[in-house]
């Protein structure tokens, strides 16, 4: 076990994957000498060379497009998108090519491409630097989408993503890069829980609170605060956003009868809707109140002086818990 930051844990996971498989190559803007704008690839070009840690010209569509070619040639590219808001020039390659080639070729061509995306807000950045675009990708068949919330998962799941023969979007909550945690680097990947499993973070009996990525620590804090008021919250970290591991959520909701989902991304058409609908289908008779979503608004990410209003925080999550519990809340008297 060693203590390391979230960012360092991703770095260590990348290093391990590169040591174990010479076909793993990293590609992205400023990932070489600079080590990436967040220093996630710090030192890797020095140790593995410019042919394995490739500073690419400034063109995201080209990064993903050439990754497809490298995958055809037997490589396992790991592409860094510098910030969430810069993935869109590559959207066409991801959605039309990366996601569909295996299907289109009757399984003859594999696309073991990992796309690392620092995402989410809370760091006071200008526009295009704080977005949560995950739902575009969970809506695209052929892609696996995961998001990590702590250094151990960051370390393990980057390796699992790289080992996957399917393309994986790996969403990194950039505002948590400096969070420290224990990481077991000797962990045997085959014994680690699959990257497709959700994890119960805090056990509880009154409300099931589902989240992922940057809001996991916030949800955990909300559970502590709620317990002060006598409410027992079970927090679930999805880890995998596509496919979603519904079994533990279902088991939890059968126990608590109440479901709250929180994410930074906009509400409409978001993952919260998918989870609420699926859980309603799966355990309608166990629900004691309607599922509640606590999310970012349906707005472009706001200027940084306003981001605290957009991002779900402890108070907004607790308000959502109150709604699920039928306690006085901001919408009291409005809901049926």
């Amino acid at each position, binding site marked *: 076990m060693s203590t390391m930051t979230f960012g360092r844990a991703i770095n260590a996971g990348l290093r391990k994957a590169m040591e174990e498989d010479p076909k793993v190559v990293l590609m992205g*803007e*400023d990932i*070489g*000498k*600079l*080590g990436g*704008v967040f220093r996630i690839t710090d030192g890797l070009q020095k140790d593995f060379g*410019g*042919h394995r840690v*490739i*500073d690419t*010209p*400034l*063109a995201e*569509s*080209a990064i993903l497009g050439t990754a497809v070619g490298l995958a055809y040639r037997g490589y396992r590219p790991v592409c860094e998108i510098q910030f969430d*808001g*810069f993935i*869109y*020039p590559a959207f066409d390659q991801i959605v039309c090519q990366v996601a569909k080639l295996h299907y289109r070729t009757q399984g003859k061509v594999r696309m073991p491409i990992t796309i690392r995306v620092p995402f989410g807000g809370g760091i*006071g*950045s*200008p*526009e*295009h*630097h704080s977005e949560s675009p995950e739902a575009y990708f969970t809506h695209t068949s052929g892609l696996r989408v995961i998001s990590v919330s702590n250094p151990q998962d960051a370390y393990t799941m980057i390796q699992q993503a790289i080992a996957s023969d399917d393309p994986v979007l790996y969403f990194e909550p950039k505002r948590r890069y400096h969070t420290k945690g224990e990481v077991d680097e000797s962990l045997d990947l085959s014994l680690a829980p699959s990257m497709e499993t959700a994890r119960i973070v805090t056990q509880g009996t009154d409300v099931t609170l589902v989240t992922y990525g940057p809001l996991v620590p916030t949800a955990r804090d909300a559970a502590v605060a709620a317990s002060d008021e006598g409410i027992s919250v079970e927090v679930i970290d999805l880890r995998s956003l596509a496919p979603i591991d519904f079994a533990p959520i279902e088991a939890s909701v059968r126990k608590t009868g109440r479901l709250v989902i929180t994410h930074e991304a906009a*509400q*409409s058409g978001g993952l919260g809707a998918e989870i609420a609908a699926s859980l309603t289908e799966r355990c309608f008779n166990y629900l004691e109140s309607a599922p509640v979503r606590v999310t970012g*608004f*349906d*707005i*472009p990410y*706001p*200027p*940084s*002086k*306003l981001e605290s*209003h*957009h991002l779900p925080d402890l108070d*907004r999550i607790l*308000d959502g818990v109150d709604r699920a519990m039928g306690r006085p809340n*901001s*919408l009291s008297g*409005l809901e049926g």
Partner: protein
Amino acid sequence: MLRNETGPAAGSRNERGQDLETVQLISAAGERLSHPEFDPWVADVTEAQLTGLYEDMVVIRRIDTEATHLQRQGELALWPPLLGQEASQIGSGRALREDDFVFSSYRENGVAYCRGVDLTDIIRVWRGNASSGWDPFEINMATPQVIIGAQTLHATGYAMGIQNDGADSAAIAYFGDGATSQGDVNEAMVFAASFQAPVIFFCQNNHWAISEPVGLQSHVPIANRALGFGIPSLRVDGNDVLAVLAATRIALERARTGGGPTFIEAVTYRMGPHTTADDPSRYRDANELEDWAAKDPIARVAALLQSKGLLTTELQDAVQAKADAVAKEMRAGCINLPDPAPMDVFANVYSTPNSWLDRQRENYSRYLAGFSTASEGGK
């Protein structure tokens, strides 16, 4: 596998097989060099106007340093310095007419100054108050673009509109060396050439795209690329305000008279970090910085003015006073800028009411009201 040297590949040729010339009208030492093709385009520049260009460059350098200080003092969240690129921005910005339209990146605050932007509007975005600082139609300059290269298409489309309207104004797109790798920029050149749109592609090759040297983006001088699209191209010393002014005037004249697009590569250098969040010592050599410091755009005009006997203490004092006043005004504007109101997060997403958002706005307003009742009630 990948080339990593800085600067365009040595020995690159243009389509006629000649080394592409980098036009200079003022040497680094401040001598006025003659150039038969470019001279006529700046022949009308009076001594007073030359002094004006000097003043502009000093003022925007001052604006830039003041903004960097404001960032260091926690008043701005971030700032992208233009230090070293003053001649490129003033030379081109001052060539424009009021009815021309500018589409820039985040770094062209010197161009914004030429357009007459309100100084507080320059820093609004960087303080985190707004996503856009000014009204684009007030100064005929689009809101700066962060998505690398996207604005080149916007400029081309705007120019297609000018053309359809039968007007004689032009659109100008500002972008960096790194941006030339983006599909958008290349597609913009295809459209501009196909439609012979009155647009200028003004590339400030400041040698770096964050940590990536220009050699990674282009195997030939960037100006050469435009030729492949059938777009006439000029390469100028971007630290030479007169050469930049002349090149921009040549391109504008072509655009106004139905001659279509022009590409200009202004060869300059980013003397500062990429933004205040960047640490260039991780990736570039201090020697390189020294070399470029010797080619400073302001020092050479000062030397030229000196040789003409124009750099009097009077002038220097006046320019300094102007720079100080402008910096003071910007600082005051920045510090006194009121924070946006919480409910502003919902403003302007759509131009007409939207039922999804209306519901979220109402709910959030009730939520916020709960806090004031709670505190009034001493919860």
